[in-house]
């Protein structure tokens, strides 16, 4: 029996960016009415491929066929006109506007006067047809991440999308929200004939939700098969290309004396809402606390309160017995607190400054490098050189501007700069985000070295594997509270994942 004619087909798609081949002669077949998973690691080319299908990016080579006709999408406008809609990894919504305004934005039918009443009626019909329930008058910033994602899906459907591309839709969802999403997608496919392209790096999603899967690795298609015929092991092998035994950290080393005591720490976010609702934990020297959670549950506020960049709304923070709750960031630096923020280019470094001047960012107050108000330029330059070589930072020399470093090298510089102060308490917020495999491994082993030399480390990350492999204690965070503080041997992916979704410990443990 011949395979049914694909609805959307790509042949020989290639795309090169300066210095890297993102896609290398990729073929893709998407059949009508299926959920087709595109599986691959970070950097495999999934998003680039989807951007090409959506018209955001033009391929260097290759063709696209829709309904048997050759098509070319010069912009999302063309793709939308042909019935292809995309929901991106990061939200593309105007948070200050209402749901209805967002759905209607840019719609070709809404020319001239915006008949909001008619649009509302149309959208409500759509919602009923698909079985959605959403408050059209709500402002987007009031919705949860899951709610916002549904707004984007609704928006694509309102534009008449027959093919829906979802790029890593589950990365910011809690497990219950994921279940809702997948169920909703199945309903769309089954009852409305929508075709779904699901881009993900998560195996469980692929196994449960898709009918066929295409695996990408390093810009090439390495496997294409019905999900029913695939197993997780096979898929992992295709994704990674070799058997990777995931090594966990050695547990030989014992912790030192208690260093950090946090009691009912709370903080407001920038919108004035209580984002951190009272966390309590203690940490000894040489221990790593892994705070696991989906971004937006109070991690940013936690990191900033610990570092002194956000005032505590309540609670207490004690470092080695000293109450530092209201201490300025500068005083905390002096007391041995080190902070690696998530935004390395915007907050942790100054793009236009040289590497030496960036090092000075953590040293301008240090009496060892300032003499009567004057900076010790030679000393700082030497320190920078040492950091560059010890942390394997690829840079022509220490006076080059920070903006010329790649993300990985910049992060290594920042890490080196902070650790060169031998902090007693290290706060690392999303330290490996956006880094390639080599840099990620380097950062993780550096964190373990810090732990080995007696620092207390608070690691805040979204990557459950990272948390589980590096932490002595695991604290899942959800809506500003810790579900529990689990010792390493009691923390497994299921339990932690469930608590990240808000299931209380008892229930979680019973799963």
């Amino acid at each position: 029996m011949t395979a049914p004619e694909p609805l959307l087909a790509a042949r020989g798609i290639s795309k090169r960016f300066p210095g890297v081949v993102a896609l290398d002669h990729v073929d893709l077949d998407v059949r009508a009415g299926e959920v087709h998973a595109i599986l691959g690691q970070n950097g495999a080319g999934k998003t680039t491929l989807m951007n090409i299908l959506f018209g955001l990016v033009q391929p260097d080579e290759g063709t696209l066929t829709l309904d048997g006709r050759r098509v070319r999408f010069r912009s999302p406008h063309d793709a939308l006109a042909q019935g292809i809609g995309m929901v991106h990894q990061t939200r593309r919504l105007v948070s200050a506007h209402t749901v209805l305004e967002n759905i209607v934005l840019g719609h070709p039918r809404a020319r001239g006067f915006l008949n909001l009443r008619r649009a509302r009626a149309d959208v409500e019909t759509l919602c009923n047809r698909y079985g959605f329930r959403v408050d059209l008058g709500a402002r987007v910033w009031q919705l949860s991440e899951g709610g916002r994602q549904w707004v984007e899906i609704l928006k694509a459907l309102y534009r008449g999308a027959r093919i829906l591309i979802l790029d890593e839709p589950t990365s910011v969802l809690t497990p219950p929200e994921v279940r809702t999403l997948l169920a909703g997608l199945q309903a769309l496919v089954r009852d409305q004939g929508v075709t779904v392209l699901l881009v993900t790096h998560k195996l469980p999603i692929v196994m449960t939700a898709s009918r066929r899967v295409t695996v990408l690795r390093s810009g090439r298609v390495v496997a294409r098969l019905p999900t029913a015929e695939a197993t997780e092991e096979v898929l992992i092998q295709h994704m990674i290309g070799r058997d990777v035994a995931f090594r966990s950290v050695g547990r030989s080393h014992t912790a030192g004396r208690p260093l950090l005591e946090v009691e009912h720490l709370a903080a407001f976010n920038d919108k004035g809402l209580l984002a951190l609702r009272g966390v309590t934990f203690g940490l000894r020297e040489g221990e790593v606390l892994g705070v696991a959670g989906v971004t937006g549950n109070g991690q940013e506020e936690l990191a900033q309160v610990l570092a002194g960049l956000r005032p505590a709304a309540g609670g207490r923070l004690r470092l080695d017995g000293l109450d530092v709750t209201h201490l300025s960031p500068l005083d905390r630096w002096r007391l041995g607190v080190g902070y690696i923020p998530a935004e390395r280019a915007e907050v942790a470094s100054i793009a236009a400054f040289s590497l030496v001047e960036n090092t000075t960012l953590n040293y301008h107050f240090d009496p060892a490098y300032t003499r009567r108000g004057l900076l010790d330029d030679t000393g700082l330059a030497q320190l920078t050189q040492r950091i560059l070589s010890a942390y394997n930072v690829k840079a022509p020399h220490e006076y080059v501007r920070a903006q010329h470093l790649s993300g990985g090298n910049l992060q290594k510089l920042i890490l080196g700069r902070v650790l060169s102060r031998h902090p007693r308490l290290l706060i690392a917020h999303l330290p490996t985000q956006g880094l390639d495999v080599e840099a990620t491994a380097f950062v993780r082993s550096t964190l373990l070295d810090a732990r080995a030399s007696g620092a207390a480390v608070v690691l805040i990350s979204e990557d459950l594997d990272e948390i589980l492999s590096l932490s002595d204690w695991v604290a899942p965070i959800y809506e500003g509270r810790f579900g529990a503080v689990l010792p390493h041997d009691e923390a497994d992916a299921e339990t932690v994942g469930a608590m990240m979704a808000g299931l209380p410990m008892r229930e979680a443990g019973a799963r």
Partner: protein
Amino acid sequence: MRLGRHEITLDPRPTLRPIYTVLTAVVAIVVALALSSVLFLSAETGPFSAYRIVFSYAFFNPRGFLATTHRAIYLLFATYAFLVPLRAGLWNIGLPGQVFAGALASFAVPLALRAAESPTPALPPVLIIGLMVAAAAAAGGVLGGFAGILRARLQVNEILVTMMLNSILFWLVSYMIKEGGVFMGATAEGESFSLPPSLYAPLLRGVPFTAVLALLAAVFLDLLFAKTALGYRIRALGENPAAARYGGIIPVTLSLMVFLLGGAFAGLAGYHYFAALPGVYKIPGNYGYYGDLAFYGIISALIARGSSLGAVPIAVLFAGLSLGARFAQGALHLPFGVDYALLGLLMMTFVGSQVVYNFRLAWRRVPSEAASSMTTGMPEA
């Protein structure tokens, strides 16, 4: 922008060698001069001889050169007044207001000491002059600091506040010299009283001691920003406030500090021009013109790219140009405002030079298969 099979784009330039900084500054000035030759077209003699008049008066005529020096000192103070907050990323356009505040304060000192009336003042003149200088700096500083603290604590836009203060101070001076009682001059000509000779600033070959202050300040400021921790913090704040906060640098104190310092320099400019220059020694009826002149400080700070020593030759050049232009305007019966036009043209060429400095025109052949390609960001997963 596409042209057939090619496209032109503006690409950001990677960092250039320092020689380019100087080069673009020079080019900006030269282009502005070339453009302003248009202003001299209406003169009978034509641009070249007009420029000859300008330069020969400003730099080669003894009286003209002295006047150039006097004005250069004024512009230097104005430059520092703008430059210091600029390094912290803040815009002090309240220069005229702070100059006026400084002028008012300097003249208030002898009044307060009743030294204006009697020929033999109670305190030694040197001390009174010192007080006048200090009062000028303090008044300018307070005015600047007011804007600074509003910016620091409440994020009130400093451009708006300083501009409002400019207008307020302008009218305040009007009031003082036209209805201010003891402040007014002996003749009812709408100007302030004249300083008694005992309070004239000490001169060295016709140049007041403020020249020394200005030059010392240049050295001081460059050292401050290059070598000190405080200067580093100000620069960090100006480049990236979020990163500066991360590094423990507190914006509130620094914002206030740079405006206090900047305002103080503008106040000194006010003392210098109205109280220290031979032939002036009062606040004249056309004081507004000198307030406007302070805006040249903005341009020279921008062209000097924040370097105060670099601003010295630029200030001298602008001083000479504006004086010479005024002189040429009179000699050649040109319309009023040649120096203002020059100010405007310099700003235009400066911005133009910034574009040239930071970007270059790239001419590329578009790859064959891709149709209209939009430049994209870095590769994602």
